């Protein structure tokens, strides 16, 4: 027998020699044993861009005082809401010219909401940047109690919008339980006005969006609802190894999402039934609004978990029709309903219309629906290069951002599993994945540059919400990311400011105050055009900066800005300089013929 073993070893060595001699194809080099020792199952197959040098984004949450740790409130019973939250928001609540940060807290679960300001509540952090000091230090102060927005419900997400057109952003907090509306008083405080605004909604609300669906100048509100769920009716699900785990959405009936019309007098009217949305229950997680068929009315895209997505085309007169299937955005290219989580609307291929990106569960690629003509999309994920890298990830918060200010919209996704990752058995919270950054290289193609995007992209966590905006006011887009059961991150962009930029703040007069839904077109001197739409929604459970950011590439070529307001008015402004923020007020530009 001993002779046999020796013979085996010798023969194996011979085999090895043979393998080496006839070699024609090589694989990724790793140290012996590495395959069995890698702690992070998601680290393989990640590409990088050596030009980036590893410092695209740096994490500065703790250093700047943005200290927030999400608590799922997990009880060991695997209550479904524990694994789905939470989100975050960026808003200049005090009007001092910099973005403040709102972070939504979840746990403990099962306790009743006890009002504002208690431990375990949502937190508002005021940005203390000095607008007059370009080299100022970024620092945050927790002002939750003063501001009165420490919602202590089991938090999911938030939507931001100036629903009363008084010039400051208001806040809607979605909860598992009762969601709440906070009106910004303009003096650094908010007041909870849910009841007087007639917005008492109960259930498991997820993403929400303020948008002006009837173009009357007042922001209406859509609230996505996920499943009909009560703690007393929680199912226990199991992993493939039989261990307790979280269930998925299809274990519970879908809940009805809700649409509310703003009457302009501080009240919201539930128009879900009259607008045609009633009876269309899906497991809605992601919500984004935009004019997706070019008729000038704001439509509604819903990323649904395990169901087909919905694209509610606004017919006018508060009537909506779901045309997602015909539009080609309901399903994957193979006709499968996927697990829609987050959503981003933007002009990914720089062809002048908006495309839709939806993040999905691991095992399903994230999907890029590219607009072919108004209202008609095609799943071009494979062609874009976004298919393979997204396959092992469960994506949540996402947005099109031009992180390098080269003029093209790049893509960020934050990822985290919703059921146990069985390759992480020793991890106390085995849901961790890596965030991803994709660089737009033109022609509708993207390259995964995560591996060289900085340390935050190599530290796995359980990503959920993400909000985007220039938090340090240095001319590029930064990111706040909220993680399930972990500390929030502040990703400061360290490369964007190398290129010129232009930031546009739209101020509606007839249109809603922030110009939500406006289309902003930047023209360069060679006739080139880029367009963006004014929005805060999208991503997952989160709200971003309302200002529109244009990277200008190396040439810094910016000639004119055209704004197509929600009311239909078109105006043009001449750009006098770059690296500035322009405030464009409706009615003060040069009117263009329709």
């Amino acid at each position, binding site marked *: *027998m001993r002779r046999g073993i020796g013979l085996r*070893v010798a023969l*194996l*060595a011979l*085999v*090895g*020699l*043979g*393998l*080496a001699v*006839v070699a*024609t*194809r*090589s*694989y*990724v*080099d*790793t140290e*012996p044993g590495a*395959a*069995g020792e*890698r702690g992070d*199952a*998601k680290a*393989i197959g990640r590409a990088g861009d050596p030009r980036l040098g590893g410092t695209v984004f740096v994490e500065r949450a703790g250093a700047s005082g943005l200290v927030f740790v999400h608590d799922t409130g997990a009880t060991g019973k695997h209550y479904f809401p524990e694994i789905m939250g939470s989100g975050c928001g960026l808003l200049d609540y005090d009007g001092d010219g910099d973005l403040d940060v709102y972070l939504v807290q979840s746990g403990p679960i099962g306790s009743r909401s006890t009002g504002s300001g208690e431990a375990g509540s949502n937190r508002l952090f005021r940005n203390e940047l000095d607008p007059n000091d370009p080299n100022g230090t970024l620092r945050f102060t927790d002002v939750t109690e003063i501001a009165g927005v420490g919602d202590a419900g089991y938090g999911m997400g938030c939507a931001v919008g100036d629903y009363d057109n008084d010039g400051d952003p208001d806040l809607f907090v979605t909860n598992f339980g009762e969601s709440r509306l906070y009106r910004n008083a303009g003096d650094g405080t908010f007041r909870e006005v849910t009841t007087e605004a007639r917005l008492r909604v109960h259930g498991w609300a997820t993403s929400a969006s303020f948008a002006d669906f009837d173009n009357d100048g007042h922001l209406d509100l859509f609230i996505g609802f996920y499943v009909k769920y*009560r*703690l*007393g*009716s*929680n*199912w226990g699900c*199991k992993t*493939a*190894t*039989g261990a307790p785990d979280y269930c998925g959405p*299809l*274990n519970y009936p879908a809940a009805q999402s809700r649409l509310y019309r703003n009457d302009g007098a501080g009240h919201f009217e539930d128009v879900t039934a009259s607008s045609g949305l009633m009876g269309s229950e899906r497991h809605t997680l992601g919500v984004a609004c935009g004019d997706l*068929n070019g008729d000038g009315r704001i439509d509604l895209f819903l990323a649904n978990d395990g169901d087909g997505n919905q694209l509610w085309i606004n017919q006018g007169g508060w009537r909506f029709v779901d045309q997602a*299937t*015909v539009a*080609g955005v309901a*399903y994957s*290219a*193979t*006709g*499968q309903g996927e697990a829609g989580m987050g959503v981003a609307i933007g002009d990914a291929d720089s062809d002048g219309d908006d495309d839709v990106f939806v993040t999905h569960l691991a095992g399903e*690629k994230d999907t890029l629906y590219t607009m072919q*003509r108004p*209202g*008609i999309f095609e799943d071009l994920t*494979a062609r874009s290069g976004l*298919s*393979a*890298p997204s*396959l*092992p*990830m469960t994506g949540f918060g996402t947005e099109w951002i031009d992180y390098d200010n080269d003029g093209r919209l790049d893509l960020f996704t934050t990822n985290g599993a919703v059921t146990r990752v*069985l*390759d992480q*058995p020793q991890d106390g919270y085995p849901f961790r994945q890596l965030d991803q950054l994709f660089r737009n290289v033109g022609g509708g193609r993207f390259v995964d540059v995560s591996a060289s995007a900085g340390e935050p992209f190599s530290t796995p966590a359980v990503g959920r919400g993400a909000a985007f905006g220039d938090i340090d006011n240095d001319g590029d887009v930064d990111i706040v990311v909220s993680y399930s059961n972990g500390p929030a991150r502040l990703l400061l962009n360290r490369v964007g400011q190398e290129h010129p930029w232009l930031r546009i703040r739209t101020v509606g007069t007839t249109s809603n105050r922030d110009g939500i839904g406006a289309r902003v077109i930047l023209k360069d001197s060679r006739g080139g055009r880029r367009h963006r739409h004014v929005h805060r929604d999208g991503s997952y459970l989160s709200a971003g900066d309302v200002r529109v950011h244009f990277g200008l590439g190396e040439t810094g070529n910016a000639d004119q800005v055209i704004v197509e307001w929600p009311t239909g008015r078109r105006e043009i402004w001449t750009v006098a300089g770059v690296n500035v923020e322009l405030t464009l007020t409706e009615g003060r530009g040069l009117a263009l013929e329709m």
Partner: protein
Amino acid sequence: MSNANDRLGARWYLWAALALTGAATLGVRYKQMAWPFSDRFVVTLPAIPRDRPSIADAASAKRFSDAHERLESDPLDPIANGTLGMLLHAHGMLEGAEACYRRATALEPACYDWWYYLGRCLAKRGATEEAIDVLQAAVDGNNSYLPGLLALAELYLSINEPAKGRRLYQMALERDGSCAAAYWGLGCVASLEGDEAGVQRNMRRALELRPDFGEARYALAMSERGDATAVPGKQAQRIHGVALRNAVADPLMGAILAMGVDASADVVAGLRLHRVGRFGEAVPRLQQALASRPDDAQLLFKLAQSLEGIGEFDLAVEAYERAAVAAPAHAGVPASLADLQSRLGRMDEAIRFWRESLRLDAGNQEVRKELVQALLAAGRRKEAQQEIIMGMNSLD
């Protein structure tokens, strides 16, 4: 013993010969492994996954235990390595599976199966380019396994390499001219190349071969659709006539699925069919799923609802009662059982189960409303009043 040793020696000679032949055929330089040709011919392989997962299912746990023991007794046995890899793969532990498959391919490089499993495992882990290398090497050595050709082709499409995908789909059609999945693939190739006529031609051919091929039907509908604003909702419904994909049978992956701890396919199918109200079809799938998970409360609950949906009320009551035993703290089970008893006119039973539901979840006003109405209908006004008061007390 002598005979056994001879057989063992002969087996290793054979393996060595196959390995060298296979390596030459596959043209693989396997850099993943280090082969330091020291005096003692030490061979270094990826480490064997040592973590033994906690498996609740006894039969599966035994399979894991056996596989580990077999591998520990003979770490250089490719079958022992591959088998553990398959088990890990079946239970979603892909990192360990990958290590085992790497060992198996190194120890038995002429064996197509290990390369195929390694490629599929890598693909699932998102290492697409390496998965392509592995599957391409496998196909180069053996192009007779149709699922291998199709899996590799799909990976090429996922990285926008339609030309390479086309070659593989054509190769598949050379092997089986009636392979609908290959025509579907050629349609996808055409789509990537912006050739709508090619999409339609190939999807139609796939549907001729397999009229129930939902993915081809969907792709064809997408290619042929008109202006969204002009298409009524009815057509949208017709476009979404999607059935499950009908790919060719894949016995190798089937072997992995068979190792899973539960009847996942039946669970998923049963729950989906239940969800869309196809109760008659859901019942047998849920019953099949329950055969391997008899105490799964959710499956029992869905089975009960499905049985109720097809009018098998007595069987439904029985299933609800089993669900209540399996999930004694779940308020939804007695509530549903109460609803069914009410429907059957057994009001005393209904009231009893609504009360049980409220005992578990006092805040559920919908259930309390049902209970109050039933009590009032039964003339039990005082009890109804008490329930109303308790309901008000339970409000936030």
